């Protein structure tokens, strides 16, 4: 009972600290809305953008606000196939957020495990892992992802794998640094004396202490992953046309931009911008609140 109160107090303090910044609070609200919209996309969208039979080619490239042949309105216009942009954006958001979250979570998991083991093992294992991390981090993520996708081909599993590969090294390095500090603490010695196994010490005792700062990094990394996926899809190396993310919708509109059909690229881009910006603002605030030096 007392433990529950002790745990709740810092959480409340943390929430209050976060809420002091109105912009960050607004960004959090926007983010929550975007998540809700992405989850509820099949029910919110007036049209199923993947059901080709439900599209009417006569409705192609209608400007925003036009009435469809079937009666409903294209509030954000329609694309070259007569696809309702509002519906396509809702479904695209679902894919973009899903890919960003899943790849970051996987990369975080792998990075944590490798970083912890590397810090504990030391010696040549540590040296080898860290040289690999150095090598990878000396090249920009877009270049590494580009090469990987050129080699493996398209597909949602391939893009998630590529995003995991470009992210894991960053976490591994951060975790290793934090774990080296933690491993010198007394509670680790105590756990060793108590006869606990290596795995238990690493994952039950050290892990919870290195996790909080990493969560902040991961928040901002989700935004990076979403932007990177959109960029790769735009270049034609990311997702296939059957699973359009926001990036692919923008790429599709590129062909009609010069003819003045701006809405096909503009609105998915705004949705992408809103998502990335909301995540960045929330991540920035989290870091400020958790950093005691700035208090």
């Amino acid at each position, binding site marked *: 009972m007392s433990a529950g109160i002790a745990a709740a107090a810092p959480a409340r303090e943390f929430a209050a600290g976060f809420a002091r910044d109105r912009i960050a609070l607004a960004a959090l609200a926007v983010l929550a809305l975007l998540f809700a919209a992405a989850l509820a996309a099949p029910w919110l969208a007036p049209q199923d953008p993947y059901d080709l039979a439900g599209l009417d080619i006569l409705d192609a490239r209608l400007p925003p606000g036009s009435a469809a042949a079937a009666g409903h309105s294209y509030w954000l216009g329609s694309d070259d196939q007569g696809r309702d942009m509002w519906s396509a954006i809702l479904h695209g958001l679902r894919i973009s957020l899903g890919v960003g979250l899943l790849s970051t979570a996987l990369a975080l998991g792998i990075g944590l495990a490798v970083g912890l083991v590397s810090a504990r093992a030391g010696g040549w294992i540590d040296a080898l892992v860290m040289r690999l991390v150095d*090598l990878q981090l*000396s*090249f*920009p993520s*877009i*270049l590494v992802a*580009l*090469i990987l996708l*050129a*080699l493996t081909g398209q597909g949602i599993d391939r893009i998630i794998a590529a995003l995991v590969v470009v992210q894991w090294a960053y976490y591994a390095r951060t975790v290793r640094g934090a774990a080296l500090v933690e491993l010198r603490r007394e509670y680790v010695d105590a756990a060793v004396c108590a006869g606990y196994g290596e795995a238990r010490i690493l994952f039950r005792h050290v892990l919870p202490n290195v996790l909080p700062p990493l969560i902040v990094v991961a928040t901002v990394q989700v*935004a990076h992953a979403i*932007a990177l996926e*959109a*960029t790769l899809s*735009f*270049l*034609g*190396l990311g997702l296939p046309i059957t699973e359009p993310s926001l*990036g692919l919708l*923008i790429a599709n*509109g*590129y062909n009609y*931009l*010069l003819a*003045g059909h*701006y809405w096909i*690229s*503009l609105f998915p*881009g705004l949705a*992408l*911008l809103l998502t*990335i*910006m909301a995540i*960045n*603002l929330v991540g*920035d605030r989290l870091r400020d609140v958790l950093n005691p030096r700035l208090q």
Partner: protein
Amino acid sequence: MLSFALRRLAQSAATLFVMSLLVFAGVYAIGNPADILVNPQADQAEIARLTAQLGLDLPLWRQYLVFLRGAFGGDLGSSFVAGVPAITLILERLPATLELALLAMLIAVALGVPLGLLAGLKPKSWTGRAIMAGSILGFSLPTFWVGLMLILLFSVQLGWLPTTGRGPTTELFGVPVSFLSWEGLRHLILPAVNLALFKLALLIRLVRAGTREAMLQDYVRYARAKGIAERDVLRVHVLPNILIPVVTVAGLEFGSLVAFAVVTETVFAWPGMGKLLIDSIGLLDRPVIVAYLLVTVCLFILINLAVDLLYAALDPRVRPGIAR
């Protein structure tokens, strides 16, 4: 210092070797280019003949040895599509990419340092907040989408600037450049601004943080106590201290500008090596992909090496033997 430089050089050579192996083995895994190059009516014998002619029937390690022997002589194989040496294709496109990246870096530094300084000196002011909001926006805007919107605004709607392409070039020491003619500059400006935006946002943050920290230091207080004018405090004491990390970051980020040029070049149909890479991936033109990657890896190794050596020269604490 010399032994440090030599050891660092050996490390770079090892990196290059490992990368060449990885790149070659990886690129080999992409389909059989002969299937794409011959016309669809060709029979099996013709495909086999072309495969042999391109050296694709040899085992992987033999292909690598042939490639390595050529690479030491500066020959990375010929483009399957264009029929000319891949390295020639890449080097022809290199000036366009470098010009774009250099101008983008120039724009980012020329705007980022004063804006960051302003935001750092008055963090609570309206201007300071506006600059930071702009910086967050710059971080969040996906480069390719901004490129499209720039084309939409300045080319399609306003009609001020050309939509895509490089336009006419002028020779400078035998290298074709755009910035010497008005028409060339008009083609260059949108892609360069597009490429610069992300780095501009980064530099604003860096300079702002550096300025805020520097203003709290004792040397600033003493300089003020001595009665030095505020602008001279900034120019003589604060700015040089901020510029050290700026130079380092600008150097390190130059490589990432070259990599990100792939995106900008695709949007603006800029005839640089990034656009060539994307086209070559589509055509499975293996030698060109390998040549692009190796040239880029060399560029990166050179940049990292230069920054490391510069750092060791500037800051004795980083030199091995003293550090750690």
